[in-house]
């Protein structure tokens, strides 16, 4: 499945970014093949409404799920409207961890 994950850098070795709306990068990853596309977050430095803008960006690319450290109330209600399930990566340290935990169904649903 196609998942969006928030990271601090542009590739699979990057650290995870706990913020959704103001994350540095968004990785769109295929959870089976680990093929990915990376996007610098267009709203990492807007003055307000970052969560909504990021949610809109994510929703336009129609992923199956989105994973981050947490989701603010506006981002959450936007993603809910777009019917995109949200998961928290919890104590995962790497992108690989996150994908493995998602595949084994052991990530916490937001």
């Amino acid at each position, binding site marked *: 499945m196609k998942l969006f994950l928030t990271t601090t850098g542009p590739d699979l070795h990057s650290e995870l970014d706990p913020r959704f709306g103001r994350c540095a990068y968004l990785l769109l990853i295929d959870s089976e093949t680990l093929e990915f596309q990376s996007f610098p977050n267009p*709203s990492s430095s*807007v003055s*307000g*409404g*970052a969560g*909504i*803008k990021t*949610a*809109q960006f994510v*929703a336009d690319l129609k992923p199956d799920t989105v994973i981050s450290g947490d989701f603010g109330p*506006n981002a959450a*209600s*936007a*993603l809910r*409207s*777009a*019917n995109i399930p949200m998961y928290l990566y919890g104590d995962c340290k790497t992108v690989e961890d996150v994908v493995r935990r998602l595949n084994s169904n052991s990530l916490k649903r937001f």
Partner: protein
Amino acid sequence: MMHQTPLKIAVASGKGGTGKTTVATSLALSLAKNLTETVMFLDCDVEAPNAHLFLKPEFSDQKQVEVLIPRVNETLCTHCGKCTEVCQFQAIAVLGQRTLVFPQLCHGCGSCTMICPTNAIQENPKSIGILQKGKAEQIEFARGVMDIGEPMAVPIIRQLKKWVKSTPSQITIVDSPPGTACPVVESMRGSDFILLVTEPTPFGLHDLRLAHQVAKELNIPTGLIINRDNGEFKELDNYCKAENLPVFLRIPFQRTIAEGIANGHTLVDILPETILSFQEICQTIRNIVK
């Protein structure tokens, strides 16, 4: 009696708690003693207005502050996303087959309504605060009060400034909010002079620099009042010298002043000799802005 040109002075600080309201209220009281001029006091710190505690106005007029919030008719909406592109505040978002409005982020500018190709957007007024005006003895007093839970001060400040235009006065004293963000810029905008208030501490100086920078950006002349001065913080004097920032007054660091203000008294009550200082400051400002 000679009438002078109207003068608008904004009192600002950057750091909170430096004495903006102490200075603004005492400046207004000092100028109101000079009966040739009418004085208007605007409390623009709408998130936490407190000047009324010192000037004790009686309010005689009140007005609701509303912004126009878009409401989307989903049967007409084609989810084209034009509204989202035009919105500068991320207050409207198209997510799949739904268009969501986030009222707390909306500034009520009306761009989304105007651009919508199918006229799917209607505007509904939403209250975000109130304006009040009245008299505090000779002083015309007005303030804005933001509703609890609302995040946007700027529309309230803007409407407050507009609302009092019908009450002409020679001198307007604006008590700005702390910080250097949009509400401060809106409070300062249109002033002839910005009177900065700071305290002689590293924190006070840090935020003074920021506030001073905003004033320079707005191209409005500035002067400084140092509150709680103990003459020990040289960095502040060095800054003023380097920046050519004139120091109009040094309010001493005294327990009696702190106690008086804590009991609701004004600086001019506690130290009546400052009345003359404030009147002179106003004259100096007139000479600068001439």
